[in-house]
């Protein structure tokens, strides 16, 4: 038993570190570290830099243009990127639909879509949730009717993250009736430019536009855009949810956020002393830090098992629960750290082209919005209560 990387893994880490250091634009990393609003281009710039190195889809096998890394190498890559302040890889193409197309797509779908995911030509979004189907996803009502060589899709998707940027959507639709609700669901790939697709913003409580409603009205989708078999969509959706879950803990990013929290707490003063030396606040930081130390090991335990060919099952739910609790605590503490300067609400000040002056320290500007925004993490991707149901059933056998 040891926590050290092997010499090969260390060499790999140095290679990744060297690449990230020399290729990640400084301005971009500062935006990430300081919680500035990232534009579509910000994500794409980094994604294309990675693509130039063959690293844009860390979890993909070589045969499909990925680097063929094992779980530990992927973890090292995540660590290095997060520590340096790289924008996160947008998951929808690389981590979600990509692996589904690799596993269940036709050769034609693989040839058409995978290279465009690698090169970021297509921005994907996820058409899962509906107004009446959140945690009970399998109750979804969006219908796809087969008419000759096309499906005609009608329905409404919601909470569709960054659909405003999307070229394509992978979508769960109902193609059959009767039987169990999990049956009769199919997995369709929909061009967002198709007539009948409309995207309407949902503004969240932080004032930002991140999620959308997507309306589908008589949208014609060619049958060759069906992934796998009709009626097997639920199986693919579950595969997608179980794929690449170890990153779900968000340990690497939380480590960077913890460092930023300490930086803020050391810059703030409280009664003439650094806030970080206020025992009451310091204790809160340290408790999160200790939880994060433990989660890092828990995550590594899952990774080590994954490296030996044991795919993470319900363990991923444990990582999700604890990981999101830690992420939320960090945003909460950052907001607390800046005291009254958490209050001013100047959304333009954390975007591009802000020429005005900050009210209070620049790092304070986005912290309250970020705290409100991060309430989402215990809801999305299967709420933490759903995760607890999964663990209760699959690990505890209750």
């Amino acid at each position, binding site marked *: *038993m*040891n*926590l*050290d*990387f*092997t010499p090969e*893994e260390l060499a790999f880490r140095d290679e990744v570190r060297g690449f990230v*250091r*020399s*290729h*990640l*634009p*400084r*301005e*971009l*990393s500062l935006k990430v*570290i300081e919680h500035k609003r990232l534009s579509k281009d910000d994500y794409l*710039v980094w994604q294309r830099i990675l693509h130039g190195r063959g690293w844009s889809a860390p979890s993909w096998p070589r045969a499909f243009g990925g680097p063929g890394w094992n779980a*530990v190498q992927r973890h090292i890559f995540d660590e290095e990127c997060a520590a340096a302040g790289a924008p996160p890889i947008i998951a929808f193409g690389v981590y979600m639909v990509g692996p589904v197309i690799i596993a269940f797509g036709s050769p034609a779908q693989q040839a058409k879509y995978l290279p465009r995911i690698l090169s970021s030509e297509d921005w994907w979004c996820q058409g899962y949730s509906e107004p009446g189907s959140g945690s009970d996803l399998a109750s979804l009502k969006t219908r796809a009717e087969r008419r000759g060589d096309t499906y005609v899709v009608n329905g409404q998707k919601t909470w569709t993250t960054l659909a405003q940027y999307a070229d394509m959507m992978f979508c769960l639709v109902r193609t059959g009736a009767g039987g169990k609700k999990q049956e009769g669901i199919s997995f369709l790939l929909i061009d967002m430019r198709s007539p009948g697709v409309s995207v309407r913003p949902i503004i969240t409580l932080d004032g930002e536009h991140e999620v959308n409603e997507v309306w589908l009205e008589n949208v014609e989708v060619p049958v060759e855009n069906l992934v796998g078999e009709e009626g097997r969509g639920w199986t693919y959706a579950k595969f997608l949810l179980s794929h690449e879950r170890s990153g779900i803990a968000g340990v690497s990013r939380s480590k960077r956020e913890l*460092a*930023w929290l*300490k*930086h803020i707490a*050391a810059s703030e003063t409280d009664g003439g002393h650094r806030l*970080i030396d206020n*025992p009451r606040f*310091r*204790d809160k930081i*340290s*408790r999160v*830090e*200790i*939880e994060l*130390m*433990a*989660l*890092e*090991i*828990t995550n*590594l*335990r899952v990774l*080590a098992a994954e490296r030996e060919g044991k795919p993470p099952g319900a363990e991923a739910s*444990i990582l999700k*629960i*604890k990981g999101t609790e830690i992420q939320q605590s960090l945003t909460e503490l950052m907001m607390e750290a800046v005291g009254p300067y958490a209050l001013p609400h100047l959304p333009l000040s954390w975007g591009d082209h802000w020429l005005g002056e900050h009210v209070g320290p620049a790092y304070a500007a986005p912290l309250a919005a970020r705290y409100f925004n991060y309430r989402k993490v215990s809801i999305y991707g299967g709420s933490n*209560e759903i995760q*607890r*149901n999964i*663990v*209760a059933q699959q*690990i*505890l*056998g*209750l």
Partner: protein
Amino acid sequence: MDFDFTQEQLLLQDSVRKFLEKNYDFDTRREIVAARQGFGPMAWQGLASLGLLGVNVPESHGGFGGGGVETMIVMEAFGRHLVVEPWVASAVMGTSCIVTAGTDDQRNYLLPLMASGEMKLACAFLEPGGRYDLSRVATTARLEGGFWHISGSKAVVVHGAVADLLIVSARTAGQPGDAEGISLFFVNPGEEGVEGREFPLYDGTRAVEASFHDVRVSSDSLIGVQDQGLPLVELVVDRAIAALCAEAVGCMQALMERTTEYLKTRQQFGVPIGRFQALQHRMVDMLVHTEQARSMAMLAALRVESPDAAQRRKAVSAAKELIGRAGRFVGQQAVQLHGGMGMTEELDVGHYVKRLQAIDTQFGDADWHLDRFVAAEAAAPLPDFSRPRSKWKKL
């Protein structure tokens, strides 16, 4: 990076588990506690004959040559069986004291006797009024006429009454609270001037309040370097803490198994109570705490071997802090989910809960270790976000 055990470690795990399954069931343990001897002579000899008393003794002295990981393996099994034997006192603390700082004579004489079970050691480090502070040593030792004369009191010396030899921290210079001026001594509890009041702890182990009235010990009773004993005390206590962390994980694991089983079998309102989501989610939270605790016990087991004392301190205190809280949560909820049955003396559940609580209190509770963690952290430089721009490629 791997979390696998070596062949030897797997064998060790197997042998300690089998031994306890055969020889240390809950009824046997109950008899050992009721006998008020402070240990089970049969069990202790059994552990000796399996070589388990020499896990931390170097191979050169006939031991297993183990360290943090081997200790973790043994202690996790001990936790599951609520073992009350003085293994931590003697085979971890006493042994590592001698292995780390003992003279050749002390090692050659004591280690084989300890490994064979003929001699048990206990450490008397804490004092009344000193809480968990290892530097609050008011007990004095002065050299006079070729002998050390020791006077003072020691608090809650766990397994002190069964010890054949005590390791006592005493001040040879400075004031209580000073880091310097502490020295360690072997003291034979049969020596004139040693008094002890023996009592049970709520978890079934036994301890003594010890006092020393001008106790005379020979000059070769000093362990390690005079006046420089504190780092050794801290190292030995950190090893004990790492051991207790693993024991706590064993206790939590046992509680998880018993509680899950209870939720599946106990029927109310015509269904097993495990069907109720409120209880399911509580159990999942217990599992999350247990897995986080397991991770920290591993971290402590590995880092306690670190030559970097700051790294060791930080990891051990982080582990003790998290496990103190996790153990309390898992224990409290295990009682709650067992309902009235969880309150009974008859069921083992309450005994695990009491042991977990005692573990939190021993060698510093969660708050105390949070403080120590912060102190270790404060010594480290803060993250630097002001890297020079020139190193970065422009957009």
